[in-house]
C-alpha cells in the first residue's frame, strides 16, 4: 500500500499524464473541427520512432524532437489531404495510417538499426529535465514536481494556451465553427478547409511531441508499438474531459494516475497482467460514467454522423 500511495506514484502520474495531455489536446482540436482523428495513435508512434532516430543521428534531443514533430506532421498532412481534400472516409484513413505507422516504424527499426523489438543506444540524448532548487527543501513536493522531462511542464503551459486560443481568440472561434457550423464560417468568408488543415497540423505536431516524450523522456529507447493504445485513451480523455482543455488536463491526470499505479505495482505479487489492465479499465469506466450525461450523448450523435459520413 505504501508503494501505491506515495510521492513516487504522484511523480509517475505527472510523467504518464504528460503524453496523454498532449495527445488529448491533439484529439480535442481534431474533434473541434469535426474530424475525429483516430490516427493519433499512429502519429504518436511515428513521433516516438523519429525522436529516437534524430537524437541518435545528431546526438541532440532538440533534433530528435524536430524529427518527431516533422514526421508526425507529415502523417497528419496525409490524413488531412485524404479526409479534407479527397473527402475520404475519416475512419478508414485513420485505420490505414495506424497500420502504416506500425509497419513503417518496425520496418525502419529493422532496416536502419538491424534490431527487432526495441532499440536503445548510448548515443540517444534525453530530453532536458528541470529542477526547481527551492522545491527540494520541501519534503514530498520536490519528489513529485522536480526532475521531470521538459514536456511535463510544457504540457501544463499548453493547456492554458489552448484554453486562451480556443475561447478567447478569433482563430479559436473559427476552429469551433469549422466543426459546429461550417456554413456560418463560409458565409463569414473564411476557408473551412484552411482551418481544418491548420487543426490537422497542430494535431500532428502535438502527437509528435507526445511521441518524443515517450521515447526520449525517461527510458531512451524505442519499442515496437510503444504507444500502446494511448492514442485511443486520449480520445477517451477528450470525451471524459468534456472537449475542454482544462477538462482534458484533469482527465489525463486521472488516467495518468492509473498508469502510474499500474507501473509502480508490477512487482507486488499480484499478477502483472491485472495491473497492466488498469489504464484500459479506467478508460472504459470513464467512458461509461461520461455516457450518462446528456451533453455527451448529443456530442456522441454528432460524432457518429461525422464518422459514418
Amino acid at each position, binding site marked *: 500500500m505504501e508503494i501505491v500511495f506515495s510521492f513516487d506514484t504522484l511523480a509517475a502520474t505527472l510523467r504518464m499524464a504528460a503524453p496523454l495531455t498532449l495527445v488529448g489536446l491533439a484529439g480535442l482540436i481534431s474533434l473541434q473541427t469535426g474530424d475525429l482523428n483516430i490516427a493519433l495513435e499512429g502519429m504518436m508512434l511515428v513521433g516516438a520512432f523519429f525522436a529516437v532516430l534524430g537524437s541518435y543521428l545528431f546526438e541532440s534531443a532538440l533534433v530528435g524532437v524536430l524529427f518527431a514533430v516533422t514526421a508526425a506532421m507529415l502523417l497528419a498532412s496525409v490524413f488531412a489531404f485524404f479526409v479534407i481534400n479527397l473527402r475520404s472516409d475519416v475512419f478508414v484513413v485513420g485505420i490505414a495510417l495506424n497500420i502504416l505507422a506500425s509497419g513503417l516504424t518496425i520496418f525502419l527499426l529493422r532496416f536502419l538499426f538491424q534490431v527487432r523489438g526495441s532499440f536503445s543506444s548510448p548515443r540517444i540524448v534525453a530530453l532536458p529535465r528541470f529542477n526547481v532548487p527551492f522545491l527540494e527543501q520541501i519534503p514530498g513536493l520536490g519528489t513529485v514536481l522536480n526532475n521531470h522531462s521538459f514536456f511535463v511542464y510544457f504540457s501544463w503551459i499548453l493547456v492554458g494556451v489552448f484554453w486562451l486560443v480556443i475561447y478567447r481568440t478569433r482563430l479559436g472561434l473559427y476552429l469551433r465553427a469549422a466543426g459546429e457550423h461550417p456554413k456560418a464560417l463560409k458565409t463569414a468568408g473564411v476557408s473551412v478547409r484552411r482551418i481544418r488543415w491548420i487543426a490537422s497540423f497542430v494535431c500532428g505536431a502535438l502527437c509528435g511531441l507526445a511521441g518524443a516524450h515517450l521515447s526520449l523522456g525517461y527510458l531512451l529507447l524505442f519499442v515496437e508499438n510503444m504507444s500502446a493504445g494511448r492514442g485511443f485513451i486520449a*480520445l477517451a480523455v477528450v470525451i471524459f474531459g468534456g472537449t475542454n482543455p482544462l477538462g482534458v488536463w484533469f482527465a489525463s491526470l486521472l488516467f495518468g494516475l492509473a498508469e502510474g499505479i499500474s507501473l509502480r505495482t508490477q512487482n507486488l505479487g499480484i499478477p502483472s497482467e491485472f495491473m497492466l489492465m488498469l489504464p484500459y*479499465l479506467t478508460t472504459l469506466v470513464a467512458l461509461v460514467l461520461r455516457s450518462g450525461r446528456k451533453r455527451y450523448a448529443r456530442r456522441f450523435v454528432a460524432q457518429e454522423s461525422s464518422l459514418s459520413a
Partner: protein
Amino acid sequence: MVLPDARNSILRSLTISVGIVVMALAAGAIIMWGVGASPALAYQALFEYALGDWEAVINVVTRAAPLILSGLAVAVAFTAGIYNLGGEGQFFLGAFAAAWAGFTVRGLPSWIHLPLTLALAALAGMGGAFLPAWLKIRLGVNEIISTIMFNFVYVLFTGYLANYPFRDPGRYSGVTFPVAASARLPFLESAHGINAGILFAFLCTILVFWIMKYANLGYRWKIIGLNPRFARYGGLKAGRAQLYAMLVSGALAGLAGGVIITGTQFRFSVFLGSGVGWDGILISLLAQDHPIGVFLAGILFAAVKTGSLGMEQVTKVPSELTAVLLALFILLVAGRRLIALMVSRRQKTIVQEES
C-alpha cells in the same frame, strides 16, 4: 458498401483490388530500390515463397483460414455500421477457449469434441464482443475506443490464464497444455497436410454471404450501415440489429482463434497469431466488406505474408514492408472511391449546397 447487384459488386471489388495491387507493387518496388535491394529479385522471392511449389501453397492456404474468419468478423460489423476494432481481443478469447476445451475435456469422440471446441471459441469471442456492443447500444459508449480498450484487457486476461492457472509447467511461461487429438482439425489431404480450416472458413464465408444477401437480418444491417437515419425513419431498430452484428462478428473472430488452435498451434500462447485480429481489419477494408471479397483478400493477404518472409531471407528487405504496402492499398482504395464520389458529387452540388 455492397451494391444491390451481387455479381456487379464482386466484379467491382475485384477490379478495384487488382488496380490497387498494381499501384502498391510499384510503390513497393521504389521502397525496395531505396533500401538497396533489387525489386525484381525481391518480388521473385516473394512470389516463389508464396506460390512457388505445392508446399508454399499449402502454407498459404493454412495461414489464410483464420485470416478469412477474422476478415469476415470485421466485414459483418462494418456492414452494420458498427466499428468492431476488437477482433484481436476476441480472437485471443476464442483461441484460449478452444485450447481450454481441447485440453480439459477428454475421452470424447472427435465428431463431438471438435465442434464443441469450436463452438466454445465462437461463444468466447461473442461474449467478448457483447460487452462493447451493449455499452454502445445502451449507454452510447463509442465502440471504436471501447473495443480497442477491451483488446488490451482480453489479451492481458488470457495471458494471465496461460501464465498462471493453465500454464504447462513443462514449457516456458505463457503456454498452455496441448489440445487432445480429438479436438484437432482433420486433414483434407493428409499427404501434404492441408487441414480443414480453409474449408471451414469457406463455409463461414458462404454463410455470411447468404445472411448479407438473402436474410432479413443482413438487409437490416445494410440499410443501417448505409443510412442510419433512413433506417430509423423506416422503423428499423438499429440497436438490436447492430447488437446481432457485433455478436456474429465476435463469434467469427473467436472462431479465427479456434481454427488457429485446433488447426496449427494446438497450444494457446501469449505470442499467438501475430495480429490476426488487426489483419482482419485490413482484409475487410481491402475487400470493401464483401464476404466473397474477404475470402479472396484473405488468401491474397496470406500469400503476401508468407512470401514476404521468403523475400526477407533472400534480399534482406524486412518483411514489414508488406504491412506498409497493405496500408498504402487501403489509403489508395479510400482515395480512389472518392474520385468516383467527387465526380458524382460535383453534379449534385449544383443543386445541393455542399456541407
